[in-house]
């Protein structure tokens, strides 16, 4: 099924024409952003130098760090009164990354979500339970408005209280759910334990963290759904950037809205179809916060073949990161954020180790940190107080519950070269 068949199946030539037109417009728009005036000036790229899609390679990349440096509103290309909503996502250090939306942006975004949900067969007859965070995270409101646009019956159940979630699925006859794949697995197990029947479910939309085909098979068996992978990032509106179609072999990225490049993350060199590298996206329709050649950090490749469904070329499901970002229970965490938090707490040292495990299908992050010699009073309760303080400060910044272990001063490894502070023991999901 199509939400916007004409756009979704544009012939190659028409699509490229549309992309070029929108690219030129985007390059003109970014002139309102000081960062881009400087970036393009230093690269000697004038808006009129963009004559073909290939000319985009003249433009330098934009990195997440650049967005951080523009905190809070440095990347807005419209006056703040035209921005009708703000979301944030984890920054690489202390401050989050801010993203803004104009009224049109919210419409465009809801439209893309509607495309995705329609593509997998959902209609206004479906009852949809949206089990993700509704706050600053884009997943909640993003899916919410897209589903409403289709006319679905939306249950904004957000996160937590799994038994209540199950009760609502049963009582409201929910047909489609959206959550992280690990939460879906947790939900399935709680349903199993309590003998709850979830047979109204038909469709599961899972995203915000990478998941395997083995996990898909498991989820489909346990929940009785057909499971679809959802991809997006706040910098590109949020979820809805790319999605699986019923073929479920790769992600359809919406080429009329996102210009896709795959690069070698080390050299920055553009790679061809079938070559795995970092996804670089130039959003073509964003008003409040246009970006050029944004490095997503996500590793994928562009398929060589077209899809049977008639939409344009797909990208592979995300297989990893080109940087050290971790996804913990669907929340993005950079080790540098942890370091930043620890720097603010004098009672502990600045060295740390992060261990990531999966316990009952949910990610658990443990952080080992050294107690500062000068703050040891000899009292156990003072140590417990320090431990609690670190847990709280980390939760405030990462919006994530972690386990903190206090270790002896000098006991953590010191790195001379590139620090290897993260041990991810989750393995394949």
């Amino acid at each position: 099924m199509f939400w916007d068949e004409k756009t979704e199946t544009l012939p190659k030539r028409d699509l490229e024409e549309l992309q070029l037109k929108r690219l030129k417009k985007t390059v003109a728009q970014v002139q309102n952003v000081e960062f881009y005036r400087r970036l393009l000036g230093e690269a000697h790229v004038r808006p009129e130098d963009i004559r073909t899609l290939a000319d985009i390679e003249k433009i330098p990349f934009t990195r997440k760090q650049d967005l951080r440096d523009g905190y809070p509103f440095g990347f807005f290309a419209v006056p703040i009164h035209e921005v009708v909503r703000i979301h944030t996502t984890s920054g690489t250090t202390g401050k989050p990354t801010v993203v803004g939306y104009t009224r049109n942006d919210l419409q465009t975004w809801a439209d893309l979500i509607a495309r995705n949900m329609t593509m997998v067969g959902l209609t206004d007859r479906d009852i949809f339970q949206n089990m993700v965070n509704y706050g600053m995270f884009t997943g909640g409101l993003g899916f919410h408005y897209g589903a409403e646009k289709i006319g679905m019956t939306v249950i904004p159940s957000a996160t937590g209280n799994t038994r209540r979630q199950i009760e609502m699925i049963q009582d409201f006859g929910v047909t489609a759910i959206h959550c992280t794949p690990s939460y879906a697995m947790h939900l399935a197990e709680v349903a199993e334990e309590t003998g709850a029947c979830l047979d109204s479910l038909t469709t599961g939309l899972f995203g915000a963290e990478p998941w395997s085909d083995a996990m898909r098979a498991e989820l489909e068996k346990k929940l009785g759904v057909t499971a679809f992978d959802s991809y997006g990032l706040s910098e590109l509106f949020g979820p809805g950037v790319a999605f699986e179609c019923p073929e479920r072999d790769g992600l359809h990225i919406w080429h009329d809205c996102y210009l896709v490049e795959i690069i070698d993350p080390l050299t920055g060199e553009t790679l061809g179809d079938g070559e795995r590298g970092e996804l670089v996206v130039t959003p073509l329709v964003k008003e409040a916060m246009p970006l050029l050649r944004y490095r997503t950090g996500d590793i994928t490749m562009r398929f060589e073949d077209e899809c049977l469904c008639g939409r344009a070329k797909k990208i592979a499901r995300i297989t990893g990161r080109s940087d050290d970002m971790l996804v913990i229970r669907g929340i993005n965490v950079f080790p540098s954020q942890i370091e930043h938090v620890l720097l603010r707490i004098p009672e502990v040292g600045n060295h740390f180790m992060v261990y990531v495990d999966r316990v009952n299908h949910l990610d658990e992050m443990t952080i080992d940190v050294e107690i500062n010699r000068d703050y040891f009073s000899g009292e156990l309760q003072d140590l417990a107080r320090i431990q609690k303080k670190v847990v709280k400060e980390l939760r405030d910044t990462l919006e994530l519950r972690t386990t903190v272990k206090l270790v002896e001063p000098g006991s953590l490894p010191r790195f001379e070269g590139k620090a290897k502070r993260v041990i991810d023991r989750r393995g394949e999901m």
Partner: protein
Amino acid sequence: MKENKFVIKQISVFSENKPGRLAAIARALQEEKINIMAFSIAEADGFGVVRALVDKPKKAHEKLGKLGFNVAFTDVIAVQMKDEPGGLYETARILGEGQINIEYAYAYSGKEAAVLILRVDNVEAAIAAIQRGGGTLIESSLFQ
């Protein structure tokens, strides 16, 4: 401060809760020929504090510190108890009536009597209360 002779310096050592840590501490003390009179381990979430009364606390502090351990002195008192039913009650009653709070305690049963090591919220008040109540405090010189 006359009562100070009853204040004993306990060494408190921060230790991760993992195999070999107590052995490392004990070995360091052995190397310095330091005798441990009493000791206990308090455990929290993944870490603990090893508390010990030793005959040479300054030397112990120095040695363990040099090895990288995090060491602190903590003031405690030691009360002699009758090694018979009711012995602990007598001491605990005195402290309770004196409104002295016990933060932690550990005990050993020696040749002549049982000894209760106490960390209290107010050391001076505890010493006064025990003396008033007819308890027997042990002077620090007996340990150190």
